[in-house]
Structures are given as C-alpha cells and as structure tokens.
C-alpha cells in the first residue's frame, strides 16, 4: 500500500515536472501552428482558443484536472483527443517491445550462460567482444544495414522470397485486412524491427547474464552438486540457472519501458506508427498536449514496471522477502 502511494506521488512529480519543462521552453506554439499568411490577430485568436494565453497556474490546474479524469487534452495539430492518439500508438510500441523482449531474454541468457560455462576458452572473450560491439551500435544504424541487406540486397542478389523482407510500415497497403495472410503480412513487417531491438537488448542481457551465472557457478552449493557427481547439465539447469533467473526476469520487467522508449529510432526508420513516432512528430510540430501525454505515459510505464518488479520478486525468489 505504501509502495502504491509512493508510486502515485512519483507520478504526480513527473506530471508536474513535464508541465514545467514544456512551459519553460521558449518559442510560441501558436506562431508555429498558424499559416505564414496569418495576421498577429489570427495567432492571438488561436492562442486564446488553445488556452495558451491563460495564466500558468490556470493552465496547470486545467491539465491536472483533466488528467485526473483521464483527459489529456486535445492534440494541437490533429484536433482530436490525445488519449485517442496514444491509444492507437501504444499497442504498436508495446507489441514491438514485448516481442523483442521475449527474444532478447532467450537469446541473451543463452549467450551469457554459454560464455560463463566456457570461461578460460577463446569463446568467452570473443562473445564478450561481439556483444559489446553490438551493444555499442546505434539501433537506427543496424536498422539501415538490415534494410540494405534484406530489402534491397535480397532483391538484387535474388535471395529466396522468404528472406525478402519489407522495410516500411506495419502492413502491406495493397494487402488484405483480415485473416491469416494479414497476420503473416504483419509478422513479415515485424521481423526486421524486432530483430534490431532484440539484437541490441540481447547483447546487454548477455553481458549481465554472464557475470550472474559466473558468480553463481563459484557458489558452495554448486561445488557440492558437482562433488556428488551430478552431470554438468543438471548442475547448470537446477542449481545455477534456477538461481540466476529471478533477477534476470526482474531486470527484464524493468527494461520494458526502456525498450519501448528505444523503439523511437526503430519506429522512425521502419515507419511504424507507434509511440516513438507519435512523440517525434509531435515534438517537431510543437504539439504540446501530445508530447506531454506521451511523456506521462512513458513515465507511467516505468513506475508500473518498478512496482511490478517490487511485488513479483519476493514471489519468484523466496529469499527476498519484502
């Protein structure tokens, strides 16, 4: 209960900070929104219409009041409720985030475990170097490289059609809307973006998993398990991984918001209509309500993930009783 209250206080702080940051910025939204031929009176009228001329305290009260009723205001440029803009964009980003996180987890833990079990051989430093290099690569650059290979290269080199992957959008504009082929179409569009996000994420998880598994492999109960003659597979499966996984699961929950935020670049390169693209578009148009709404939603995701991690960790790891 205390944690829930703390989460709400934190959310209120975020909301207030966002409001202050946005209103501190120089530059006049109304001046950007009116056409170049508009007179100063037109701009003033628009400012009044969007309530940008009200005292800042009044604007804050309106924004907080709306928020409490689940109303984030109206988009300046799209002239429709911000909640509807975000409701369309969130599932896209969440889908992208969750599917790449699952892949991230499986691949990352596998690589990290492989490294930890091959310590002292050339495999370990080679994989450390490879994962650190991928971790150092900007996702938008990886995305461009994959497009070059699997969209254009695949056509030029005559690769099988299964490897010719679409690079833009979430579905084929000429394709059907429903049914199996529509699903296949979306999955094919998702392959490249999910791969990019999962590659960067898996590289990070592998770095973490390696040190966790390596630490646990030196524990006394692992030595006992070996000493009583358990095969290596059972030692790792039952004694090492079983202990390494809870913190990794929590880490994964905590990194969901980061992945959703990181998809800004992937969405921008692959033209996916998600939160990231909504945010970037709104920023360049000075669409304050959308920018603020998106920021608050991202923060709510973080706070929710933290809360979930706090509540779930004692359940999956009895040693950490809250």
């Amino acid at each position, binding site marked *: 209960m205390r944690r829930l209250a703390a989460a709400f206080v934190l959310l209120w702080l975020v909301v207030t900070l966002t409001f202050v940051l946005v209103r501190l910025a120089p530059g006049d939204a109304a001046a950007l929104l009116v056409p170049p031929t508009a007179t100063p009176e037109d701009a003033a009228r628009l400012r009044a219409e969007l309530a940008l001329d009200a005292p800042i305290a009044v604007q804050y009260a309106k924004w907080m009041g709306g928020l409490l009723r689940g109303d984030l205001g109206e988009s300046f440029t799209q002239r429709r409720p911000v909640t509807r803009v975000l409701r369309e964009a969130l599932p896209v980003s969440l889908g992208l985030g969750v599917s790449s996180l699952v892949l991230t987890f499986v691949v990352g833990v596998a690589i990290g475990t492989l490294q930890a079990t091959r310590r002292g051989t050339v495999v370990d430093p080679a994989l450390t170097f490879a994962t650190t290099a991928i971790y150092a*690569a*900007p996702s938008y650059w990886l995305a*461009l490289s994959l497009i070059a290979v699997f969209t254009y290269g695949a056509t030029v080199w005559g690769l099988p059609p299964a490897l010719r992957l679409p690079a833009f959008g979430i579905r084929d504009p000429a394709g059907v809307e429903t049914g199996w082929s529509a699903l296949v179409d979306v999955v094919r569009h998702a392959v490249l973006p999910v791969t990019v996000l999962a590659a960067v994420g898996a590289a990070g998880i592998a770095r973490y998993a390696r040190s966790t598994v390596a630490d646990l492999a030196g524990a006394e109960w692992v030595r006992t398990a070996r000493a009583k003659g358990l095969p290596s597979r059972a030692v790792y499966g039952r004694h090492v991984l079983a202990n390494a996984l809870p913190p990794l699961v929590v880490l994964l929950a905590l990194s969901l918001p980061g992945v959703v935020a990181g998809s800004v670049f992937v969405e921008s390169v692959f033209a996916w209509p998600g939160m990231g693209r909504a945010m970037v578009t709104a920023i360049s148009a000075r669409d304050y309500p959308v920018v603020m709404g998106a920021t608050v939603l991202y923060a709510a995701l973080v706070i929710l993930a933290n809360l979930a991690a706090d509540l779930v960790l004692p359940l999956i790891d009895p040693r950490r009783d809250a």
Partner: protein
Amino acid sequence: MNRLARFSAVLLGVLVAAVVLVPALAATDPLAIGDVLATRLVPPASSDALGRFHLLGTDRFGRDLFVRMMLAGRISLAVGVAGSVLAGAVGTVVGASAAWRGGVVDRLAMGVSDALLSIPRLILLLLCAALWQPGAATVLVVLGATGWMGVARLVRGEVLGVRAQPYVSAAEALGARSSRVLWRHVVPNALGPAIVATTLGVGNAILLESGLSFLGLGIQPPAPSWGNMIAGGRDLIVTAPWVAIAPGVALIVTVLACTLLGDSLRDRLAGERPRDLAERV
C-alpha cells in the same frame, strides 16, 4: 588493465589525434560544396573526376567523407565527454549537498531525481532537445540535465558513508566551516563511484548525441556529426551505402572502446559487479 582495455586506450588516443589533425591538415574543406557533378558519391578508395583521391569516398555533395567524419568526430567526442562530465559534476554537487544538508533539501533533491529517473532518458532528452533551439550547446546542456541523477544517488550514498569517518569529526573539531569540510574532506573521498559512472557515461552520451542528430534534433547540418551523417546517407543506403556505413562504424568503434575502458576502470576501482543495463539508442 587487461589487453582489451589497453588496446581501447590506444585506439581512443589515435582517434583523438586523428580528429584534431586530419581536418586541420586536409587539402579539402569538409564543409565547402564545389563541383558537385564531378565529385559526388565517389566510392571509397578511388578518385573523383577532378583527380582527387578520396579514402572513404564522397557524399552527395562531393564532400570528402573521411575528412568530414574526422570533423564530426571532434563534435561527437567533445559533446560526449563534456556532456558526461557535466552530468557527473551536477550529480556530484546535488548528491553531496543533499547528503550534507539532509532534511528538506535532501528530500526535494531525491524526489526530483526519482521523478526524472521515471522518464526514460531518451524521452526526457527528446523532450528537452525539442523544446530548445537545436545545436551542440543544447545537446550538451540536455545531456547534463538528464544524466545527473544516477551520479547524484551514488555520491549521496558515499557522502553519507564518509561523513561518519573520524577525520571528518576532526576537521569539524578544528573549527573548519561546514562547506569547507564537505568540499575539502568529504567529497574528494566520495568520488570513486562517480568517476566510474562518468567514464561509463561517455559512450552512452556519444550514442545519445548521435541519436538526436539522426532525428534532426541535435547537431544541425552543415556541421557534421556521426548521427546526422548517417541520416544524410539514409536514402542512399542502396546506391551509395558507404555514406551511412562509414560514420556508423566510427560510432561503434568509439563507443566500444569507451565501454571496454570504462568496464576495466570499474573492475579495478569497484571489483567485479553486475553490469548496468543502460538504455540504448
């Protein structure tokens, strides 16, 4: 220092020398646009129609990519290092003051830091970068403004530990002013983790700068940055892939070297600890 870290240090040294010297000594101006038709999109390691050799080829305006990349490296490295140091400095001041003053100051500082940590750094960065005029100075300030929270918590914890040391009481007993005790005796002994975090932050700061520039919210053309050079090669990825690939490789090598160096520094100063999982661009 292990072999990888030593190699990284040498690599970064060479890179710094190159970004300082190459644009200064180069025969071609990396910003000037000359005879575009004769010089544009020359492939790597070949000469243009005017007979000038280009190590990494040219971009769509016929500008030499290698010289441009080195000039971009100046900006990217400087902004990355300065941004991370600025974040570290702000974090140290906030964390130390919060721990030393305690009470309302502490609660306020930690509240603001918690709130800022609840917004993914990338989103916070986008928000700030977009609200102010884009450019190197904005990116720098924004990197500082969005990166101090982690350091502040580290320093706060360290200061709380150090203030219990007998030499702090000794300094106070000798009648030193409170601020002098803090900055002369406590903070210098609480800086270890902050230095590690700042070093590790350099690679991340370089990546974030490049990301902002890629989206058009960071360094503005014609000034080159690795991020906006990749953006410039985005639609040429099929016809002239080298335009986007070369700055990407420079970015990866630089960030990789910074990370390996930071990792080794942390292992030396703090022992092997689970690695952090920073947000990636």
